[in-house]
């Protein structure tokens, strides 16, 4: 049978209250963290109908908006904003690029909508080549620090397009390339008309 060593036996005392509180707070903190992480992972994309957080897009040199080399979303209220995320190393982006540019050209004159291109994790020389190839005339800027893309989709892929109405509410999300100019305009026109 086990021989109990006859050493000093501590008197029976439970765990002091402050230690219990500390430990439970720690455990609940961890569980809270995991829960938040799970929720985060489940909903990486900004929901349609929610207001879009303000951001500033610093444009590539050669592009400007209203004489400034950067665009703020808040300055664009009153217009429909079409934000298109692309990258030079992305094949589907290249397939939709002419359509996006054509859609922009057709709506440019009305001054009711603005297209913004955001270059997602790309290198400038290749990006310039892409923009020249497709004659992108709407303002384009790099996604500095990944901050802009994180606002829209924490697991951003390219191409993705986010269409925001005049009041800064996200109204439409396109994951993947647009199939035609008509499809793009079919989303924008109703929004411009105020519906």
């Amino acid at each position, binding site marked *: 049978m*086990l021989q*109990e*060593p006859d*050493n*000093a*036996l*501590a008197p*029976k*005392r*439970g*765990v002091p209250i402050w230690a*219990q509180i500390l*430990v*439970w707070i720690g*455990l609940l903190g961890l*569980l809270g*963290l*995991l*829960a*938040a*992480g*799970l929720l*985060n*992972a*489940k909903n990486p994309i900004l929901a349609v109908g929610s207001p879009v957080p303000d951001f500033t897009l610093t444009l590539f040199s050669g592009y400007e908006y209203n004489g400034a080399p950067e665009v703020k979303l808040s300055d664009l209220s009153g217009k429909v904003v079409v934000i298109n995320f692309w990258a030079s190393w992305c094949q589907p982006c290249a397939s939709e690029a002419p359509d996006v540019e054509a859609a922009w050209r057709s709506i440019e004159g009305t001054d009711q909508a603005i297209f913004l291109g955001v270059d997602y994790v790309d290198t400038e020389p290749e990006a310039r080549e892409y923009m020249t190839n497709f004659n992108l005339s709407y303002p384009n800027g790099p996604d500095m620090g*990944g901050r802009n893309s*994180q606002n829209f989709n*924490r697991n951003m892929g390219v191409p993705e397009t986010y269409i925001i109405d005049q009041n800064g509410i996200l109204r439409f999300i396109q994951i993947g390339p647009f199939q035609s100019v008509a499809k793009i305009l079919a989303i924008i026109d109703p929004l411009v008309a105020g519906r």
Partner: protein
Amino acid sequence: MLAQFGIGMFLLTFLLALFSVGAAVAGYFSKSDRWVEAARRSMLLIFPLITVAALTLIYLLVTGHYEIEYVYSVTSNDMPFYLKVTALWGGQAGSLVLWSWLMSAFASAVTLRKWERDRELLPWVIVVTSVTLAFFLSLTILYENPFARWWQTTAGDFVPRMFAPAGAVAITPMDGQGLNPLLRHPGMIVHPPMLYLGFVAFVIPYAFAIAALVTGHSDDRWIRLTRRWTLVAWVFLSIGLVLGMRWAYDVLGWGGYWAWDPVETASLMPWLTGTAFLHSVMIQEKRGMFKQWNMLLIILTYALVIFGTFLTRSGVFSSVHAFSQSAIGPMFFAFIGITFVTSLALLIYRWKDLRAEVEMRSLFSREAFFLLNNLLFMGVLIVCFWGVIFPLISELVTGQKVTVGPPFYQRANGPLFGALMAIMGIAPLTAWGRSTAGTLGRMLWKPAIPSLLTTVILLFLGMRNWIALIGFTLVAFVIFVTIYEFWSGGRSREKKVKENFLVALWQLVGRNRRRYGGYLIHLSMVVMAIGILGIEVYRTTTQKTLAVGEDIQIAGYTLRYNSLAQFPSTDGRFVTRANMSVFRDGKLLGNLYPRYDYYPTSGQMMTVAGVRSTLADDLYVVLVNWENVSLIQAPFKVYHNPLINWLWIGSLMFIFGFLVAAWPDREKEKREE
């Protein structure tokens, strides 16, 4: 037909597991042996049923039933037979089946032992193992059904379901996607099962610990009963980790064995607490101390096993390893919540009954060093845990993603592991109980002198890196201490019993298997450290684009690019293979054939390095397939990894050490009973 049978088996085993839990609880509270026996039998029945279900799945995999979604996703016509069998654990659903299968095997093995003396503990051991088993079975049944089949809905989409959606048509693809090429490696066959064996085996001591807490047994019977389980769990987990390292080294193409990827680190964490536990229970057995701490350690180990499994599969943590995101995250979260809270509450409730027996007389006693051992392991655990958790915290709090990578872990864990090596050398020289600086010093100088001599020799040979110097000195120290222990033990027995020295040594080891097995394991750890120090401190790499006939040089070797061949292989791969000659000082040492394989069915590429291995180093050549490879020129990346093979040699050694330590000693056990 078979699919419905398979999922039906799982459903049945799930219900049996639930019944076991209920019957065991009922049996304990009503003190009815009949109910406990019913729980035990129900638990025993689970294993053969799961085996049948798992074999059904294997049959479907091997015979290419691609209408089953899981079969489609992990097998293809061009895969050899053995890979189709091991594809069982190639995907999320199948690996959960493997987990449940192994869990039920171990739970059954535990319930089959003689329980007469511990009848009080049995119900709760059944409860804990059954609850864990039921949890994993529920994941299989509700979320990751390996028997779901392909249907085409009226909308034209292909969906995997168990039962037909309205108006859908059953589809049978002609071929499967096939296993990810990275997983088609001998390491693939053994790494996951070994790892799971380690995880699952740690559930057993945890179950006994909980049983002891619930029933109010404050002695260390539970530790003695699970002594061998702990050792077995430890060795499987260690083997699993080493296999993972070997697999990464062979297959990932960058000649590294550990990347501190969150999933890798998560599988290391239970090993850390498990090793601490393995040591700490020795103090409880010898000196009756640290009962509370040991309870905490085994609870932590179980918690980390579940947490690590969660981390790999929930999509919350980004990793190259992670299974694709699935809905089991919330289930895991609920299970973690329940088990952590319950275990902690039980421990707090019983805290005062785990009487602390405070016989700690000296800072230089063996108990003190065991405590230091625990402190250091916990230190490494904190570093690893925090490094894994922090990116999640950063993303949630600031929205910014950060990477906590190798520099963080190496800087923090390096000194801690170094200190652990030092303790591995010092602790065997200490005595239980009373010991002073003087007595310890007297023991220390004998192995210390040759160790310092080693330092001097290394300095003389030109080694200047202080990390390597300290590291190799500590390695030498542990080696000398081990030799000294075996030598002095053998000599004293030889003198006392008048046996031949070798016989004396054999008898000595035979009668003190845990101690000498432990020394062998420590020895193997420092042998592994030799490999780690070599590659971490002295690795060099170079990359160059070579035309045919050109050379690339590294670490005194010259590699000449001879030719390139491209051809389809027998199992559908398209191989691009380079032929290189290795020279040193003008002498031809051999040829290497770095290649990459293209798998047309999945469109994936796998690099296979050409490696020349010796005890002194590895020459590891990769044909860089992501830069431009043409018949005229090709880019090569060469790694020179000094001493790396000692890492693998050391791992073989610890298996041997484990066998010595764990080999049953019937006479001793009878005496202890």
